[in-house]
């Protein structure tokens, strides 16, 4: 087995996201929009904003991750590229993981990098939290994208599968959301929360590709 098809799948997915133009910016706009609405809705009391901030950012991140996931496998079904990738001579799970990772790089990483700006709006104190924020939201977002990828693969042949992806993926987001908010609040489990978050992300990276591969084989069948 050669890793070349996997690299090619990664490259194609990267160029596809960029070629979409606004495609990669869409989740970013959605993320910012959703998070900005909350302070407008609940008022500007700093203590309250500080308390709800991390939770709101996790919810916004989870929803933003779903914005563009619909197309990552559906487009391959429609244009026939899926048939080629299934016969490319590399494990389908590795191809799916490469595509999902490329998608996270273009649509998920910008969300993590923007999180400190949004955290400031929620009165987060400038300091360590602002530096670890992107790391925590990046880790959590990676898990969101991989679980979302399972939903995307399962609904690849469904017209308007966006809502279906949300229904499939949101329950899988639960552990990441729990450990992620704990890590951002630095409460309860204290320092172990980031480790638990990292563990749940590793689990997503290890398990989701196999589920995606099985779903994609079914989609081509």
């Amino acid at each position: 087995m050669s890793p070349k098809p996997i690299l090619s799948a990664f490259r194609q997915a990267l160029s596809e996201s960029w070629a979409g133009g606004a495609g990669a910016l869409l989740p970013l706009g959605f993320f910012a929009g959703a998070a900005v609405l909350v302070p407008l809705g609940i008022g500007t009391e700093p203590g309250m904003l500080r308390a709800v901030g991390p939770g709101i950012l996790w919810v916004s991140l989870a929803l933003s991750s779903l914005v563009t996931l619909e197309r990552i496998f559906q487009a391959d079904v429609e244009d026939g590229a899926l048939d080629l990738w299934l016969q490319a001579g590399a494990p389908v799970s590795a191809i799916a993981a490469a595509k999902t990772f490329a998608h996270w790089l273009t649509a998920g990483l910008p969300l993590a990098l923007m999180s400190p700006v949004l955290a400031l709006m929620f009165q987060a104190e400038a300091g360590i939290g602002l530096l670890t924020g992107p790391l925590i939201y990046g880790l959590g977002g990676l898990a969101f994208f991989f679980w979302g990828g399972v939903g995307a693969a399962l609904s690849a042949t469904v017209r308007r599968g966006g809502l279906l992806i949300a229904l499939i993926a949101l329950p899988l987001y639960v552990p990441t959301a729990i450990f992620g908010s704990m890590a951002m609040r630095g409460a309860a489990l204290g320092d172990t929360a980031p480790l638990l978050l990292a563990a749940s992300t590793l689990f997503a990276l290890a398990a989701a590709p196999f589920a995606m591969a099985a779903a994609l084989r079914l989609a081509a069948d």
Partner: protein
Amino acid sequence: MLSATNLGILRGERVLFEGVSLSVAPGEAVVLRGANGAGKTTLLRILAGLTRPEAGHVDRQATHHWIGHREGLKPHETPRAHLKLWAQAWGSDADIDAILGEMGLSRPSEVAARYLSAGQRRRTALARLMLDQRPLWLLDEPFTALDAEGREQLLALVANHRQSGGAVIAAIHGDAGFAASREVTL
């Protein structure tokens, strides 16, 4: 190179076909015939390993090229980018400029697929056949959208491939334009 025995498949509640057997040896060309909806594409997908049959089994002894009726081109990809991507994926060091020239794609080589005509997209897909030497070609309606010149080029490719010991299984409507070793009617 490939032999399939007693293939059968259900589509929904309906038996699409059953008891289909075929085999292909070096230099041969098998043509799949049948009305629209008879299952030619499904049979090709089973032979390629994309679809699992409900009955029977396929024995593949050679690598194959797949040219489906959906070309596998991304809307933003140019013919050159498409061929380069698959050359890299397959570890091929074929001369892409030469292949583009041979398929009459030199002029639109930098045009995104969404602006290409159906025939140009089909030529780009067919150009993949030249990236990598593979003994078996699985072609689904390969002449669709091709003009007379494109048709001649494809026929020349097939003749060349068969002469050098390759085999072809193709679903074709109407005149195949080459001598089929066997026809399988669904």
